[in-house]
Structures are given as C-alpha cells and as structure tokens.
C-alpha cells in the first residue's frame, strides 16, 4: 500500500461519491470530464482522487481515472459491504494504521493524545483546524467501524469494546437491516 499522505479531511462520502460517479460513466473517465459532470469544488476533487487512489479504489494516470476491481465492487455493493471493505483497507493506510495498532495495544486512546498524534500528520494552523482534522479522522474510524468513541469520556476504543451507554442511553445492537 502506498505511503502517500492520505487526505484525512476528504470524507468516506466524498470518496464513495467519486467511485459511484466513475461507475455511472462506465468505470473510466477523464478527471476533467468528472469535474464537468459533478461541478465539484476544484479544491475537493484532487483530494478525493488522491484518497480513492491511496485506498486502492481508482487508478489515476495522465489525467485519466479508472475504477479498480475493488472500486467497482464497492460501487455495486451494499452500504454494509462498503463499510466492511473500507474497514479493511484503511488499516493499511496512515494515519489510521498507527492509530489502530496503538489502539490494539493500549485498548484506549484519549482525545488529547490522538490530537497530538495528528499534529505531526496533517496540516493545521490553530486548535480549530486540529479539531476539524480530529473530527474527520473520527468520521473515517466510525464509518468504517474499526473503532468506537466514548463521547462522555472523550476516548477512542476498539470496536470490540461495548461502550458504557454513552450520553445516558442504553446501547442497542439488535437486528441490522443492511
């Protein structure tokens, strides 16, 4: 897996949106054409392409985008499948890899410690930027269901740990429909 820097603040929805659009035009297209179809913010598309390529969902070569086999499967898969596959692939991508390995060992990481770890990874100017990066990171970890977050204690936990019914509610885990 590539060691390029993963743009954390591109969301799973951005990456999957790009994958879905590519699939809807037959699996390959010029990036400029995708830009025309979607009218997506010029700041966002290159980062979404980067993220999708690092995750192994698209190949980008001389301005041309092509879905990989995994990308096609994810475009055609259910939400549940997409989440499971994302959970697998982000384990090999920084900064998720280091955080998840650390979580395996320490079983709990406090928010402040995570923020410290992110300082060396993402671009940030002030605390507000860092909070944003933290929240982006969290959205990946939670969406891919590779970790849980205890909102009362502000700690990241392994997904296998049952949270203490955060925010005063009884946790439920019955019957997925997906």
């Amino acid at each position, binding site marked *: 897996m590539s060691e390029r820097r993963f743009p954390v603040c591109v*969301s799973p929805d951005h990456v*999957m949106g790009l994958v879905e659009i590519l699939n809807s035009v037959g699996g390959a297209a010029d990036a400029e054409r995708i830009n025309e179809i979607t009218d997506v913010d010029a700041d966002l598309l290159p980062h979404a392409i980067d993220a999708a390529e690092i995750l192994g969902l698209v190949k980008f070569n001389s301005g041309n985008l092509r879905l990989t086999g995994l990308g096609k499967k994810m475009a055609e898969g259910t939400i549940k499948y997409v989440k499971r596959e994302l959970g697998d692939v982000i384990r090999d991508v920084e900064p998720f890899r280091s955080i998840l390995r650390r979580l395996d060992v320490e079983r709990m990481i406090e928010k402040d410690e995570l923020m410290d770890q992110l300082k060396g990874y993402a671009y940030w100017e002030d605390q507000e930027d860092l909070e944003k990066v933290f929240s982006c990171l969290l959205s990946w970890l939670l969406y891919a269901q590779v970790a849980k977050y205890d909102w009362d204690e502000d700690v990241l936990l392994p997904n296998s740990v049952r949270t203490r019914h955060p925010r005063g509610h009884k946790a439920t885990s019955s019957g997925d429909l997906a």
Partner: protein
Amino acid sequence: MVGKRFIKAIEDVSFDADENEIVAIMGPSGCGKTTLLKIVAGVEKPTKGEVTYAGRRIDGFRPKVGIVFQTPSLVPWLTALDNIALPLEAQGLPREEGRETAYRYLSLMGLQGFEESYPWELSRGMNQRVALARALAVNPELLLLDEPFSQLDPLTAETLRAELLDLWQVQFASIQSIILVTHVADEAVYMADKIVVLSVRPSRTVALLKVDLPRPRNRWSEDFKRIVDKLYEYM
C-alpha cells in the same frame, strides 16, 4: 395564500406514480413543486382537484408518508438515534421499541458508530442520512423527497443517491413509490422512471417523460444524454 393575497401556485398538473416507480418532478424555481409535494403528503389542501392513493382520495385518509427536505431539519438537542426514533415515539411506540427500530434504520443508512452523535457533530451528508433513516423508519408507503441532495457537495450527493437507489432496488420495506422534486436534469434521469416537467407559476404539466433505461444507469449512454437534452429543451 401570502398575507391576504391569494397566489395560484399550481394550475393544471396531473400525473400518476405507479407502484415500484420513482417519479421526478422538475420545474423552474417557484413553480409550486414543494406545494405539490405538500398536497400529496396531505399537509396542504388544494383549492381544486384531487389526489388519490390506491383509489382513495387523500383528505380524510392519508397514506403513510416519509418526507425528506433539502435541509435535514433535525432536532439539535437529540442524538442521531433519538432523532430517528422521534416520529416512532410520536406514533405511540414505546421508547425502547422505538429506539430499537430506529437503530435498525440507522444501520441501514450506514450510521452505525454515529448513533450518539448530535447533529452539530455530523457532516451535512451524515445529517441527511439521519433524515433519510427517520423518513424510512416510519415504514412509509410513499417516500417524498424535496431536493434532498441539493444542499450537499456533489460527491456526497452522488453517494446518497446511489445508496437510496440500492435500497429501492432491493425493494426495501414498505415503500410503493418515491416522488422526487429536483431541479437537476441529470439527477432526474439517473433516478426516475418517469419525469414530470412543470412550467413557471402557476404551473402546468409541460411534459411527461418515461425513462426506460436499465439500472444502474450509464450517464454516458446516448439514451441517457438524449433524455437529459430533451429535459433542457422543455426547461
């Protein structure tokens, strides 16, 4: 009615939404698309004309309807799970049962892990997922979508469109038909089986287009482009 002034929003609009059909309603801003949706939902009364569901007039009787608006309109002090459970509890479902049902729909929309998040902690896309889950959780027969993707960035919008179509194609739950208000031709052709094009206010039906393309639809197919071009002509 605006103040004491009476504004005629809809003049002559007629269409059917058949079983297992997605109908898109397109038209210029202010042509009464949202008013039309409210009339179908039974929350606004037409001064003339009628809406029927399965052969019954919608006035005293109302089909079970789920509605999703442009903005998710979630209760800010409730978590994602509680927002989804809210209409269920309002329908009289006991709290725990409501929350269990809500959790199933939350998972369906890919929100596991975010159940205890408040709307301000979630992205726009995630909040719109909560709104969709809330609309689906009431087991609607009719799903009404009022430009539900228009406030999202294009990539997030595409993800939600695809997810909704996936759910629709596996004939999920109780939904018989979906009525989608949109102003985006590409979205209408990508999603709908039938497109109703309205004129400026007071709106009339300008065209009724069938979209017989196989799913998943290829945006680069000649047929897809032809229908999009036709829509632009009418608009």
